[in-house]
């Protein structure tokens, strides 16, 4: 069974309960910030801050709106971090769809940061390891909701079976359309095989307004590196080694006695 989070942005009031619940449950170190000219807690996610509400003031057709949405690891079906990770066992896709970081195995290379199309993982300067939302895998393992979901006061966040949440999201989208939000839709980008964090957006054609990338995919350079390049490298390595070996077998070493001299410099002259 694949589990997922559903974020109904139409019900987000930016209360930041999810931010704190995440911090508290995961025993994060709290850091005081400098004023950033915004209600947003931090400009972006940090190694000890895995769950950020993004605030965006939008003015459209003379009407002001204030869009808020929760940002965290998307737990992609086709995870860019996992694709990029060189350390076996450091990024583990759990059977329930959670992409979990196992810090014992993390080597801190930071490739996951580059691999992630959502720019989520962060390196901790002290431990030199990468961190992000674990979907509270310790809680979900014993039948508890992730901390952020449990604390959410407004039903903006729901946790459950992915298929069911998708159905809920569709129902909700239908309601919004009926209420006149023609552009309402679900954010479940297929470029990463779909995400286990689903969003209901009023303006689904412009996810950027909510701070979400429009068409996220695993970067082609990562795919190149993990795909064709691996074959090419292997081929070249063995090609060279075998080439050299058979060269030796066929031609043997260079022997001045047998192989004659190159055009000699005319030392006779």
């Amino acid at each position, binding site marked *: 069974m694949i589990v997922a989070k559903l974020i109904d942005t139409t019900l987000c009031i930016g209360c930041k*309960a999810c*931010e704190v619940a995440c911090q508290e*449950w995961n025993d994060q170190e709290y850091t005081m910030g400098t004023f950033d000219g915004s209600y947003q807690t931090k400009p972006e996610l940090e190694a000890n801050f895995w769950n950020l509400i993004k605030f965006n003031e939008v003015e459209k057709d003379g009407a002001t709106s204030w869009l808020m949405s929760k940002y965290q690891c998307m737990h992609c079906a086709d995870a860019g971090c996992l694709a990029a990770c060189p350390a076996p066992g450091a990024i583990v896709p759990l059977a329930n769809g959670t992409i979990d970081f196992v810090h014992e195995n993390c080597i801190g290379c930071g490739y996951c940061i580059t691999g992630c199309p959502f720019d989520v993982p962060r390196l901790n300067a002290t431990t030199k390891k990468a961190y992000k939302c674990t979907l509270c895998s310790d809680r979900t*393992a*014993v*039948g508890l909701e992730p901390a952020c979901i449990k604390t959410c006061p407004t039903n903006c966040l729901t946790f459950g079976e992915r298929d069911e949440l998708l159905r809920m999201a569709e129902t909700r989208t239908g309601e919004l359309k009926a209420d006149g939000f023609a552009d309402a839709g679900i954010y479940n980008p297929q470029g990463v095989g779909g995400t286990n964090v689903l969003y209901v957006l009023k303006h689904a054609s412009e996810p950027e307004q909510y701070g979400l990338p429009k068409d996220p995919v695993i970067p082609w350079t990562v795919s190149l590196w993990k795909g064709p390049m691996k074959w090419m490298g292997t081929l070249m390595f063995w090609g060279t080694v075998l080439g050299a070996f058979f060269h030796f077998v066929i031609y043997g070493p260079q022997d001045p006695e047998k192989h004659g001299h190159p055009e000699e410099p005319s030392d006779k002259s």
Partner: protein
Amino acid sequence: MPKESSRREFLKRSAKGAAVGGATAVTVPTAAAENSPATLKTANTTKTNSICPYCAVGCSVVVHTIGDKSRNVKPSIVHIEGDPDSPINRGTLCSKGASLEEFVQSDRRLTTVQHRAAGSREWKRMSWAEAMPKMARFIKDSRDKGFEAEDAKGRTVNCLKNIAMIGGCTDTNEINYLLSKFRFGLGMVAYENQSRL
């Protein structure tokens, strides 16, 4: 900034260690996680029902403590979470409520009586045994000085106007009731709480 006192850190760690054995007994109803994730920090805690002390929505919370109150053990809080039984919050909490653990265990909590003498530039630590009679003396002297048994017209008024008392909105009904008794015992009229502000 160091987050926790060393004692708390110690207790937390030991709680984690202690819970390892118990984890196998936990059934896994929904998760189907293949790998064994970190041990639940609330696995072996004592749960106490309480109410959030911030705004007046009145959210119920569950306080998770470790330590069995035996001779050398003072329980300490590892986590505070919304109480799912409450029809008000159904387990949810806002950002303030979700971090109540930080409030109870803030390193800015007062743990000793502090006294500032007249004209002094600093706090000095004081014991309750020393502070209590000093405060009582102040209260009595002020009352003796300011108490009006009768007003100018000779009517009994039993009023005390030179001592004021404020507060109570952060505390329980019962303490507010005790404050009212204290206040009327002295005859105080200047008595307010946050409801005025």
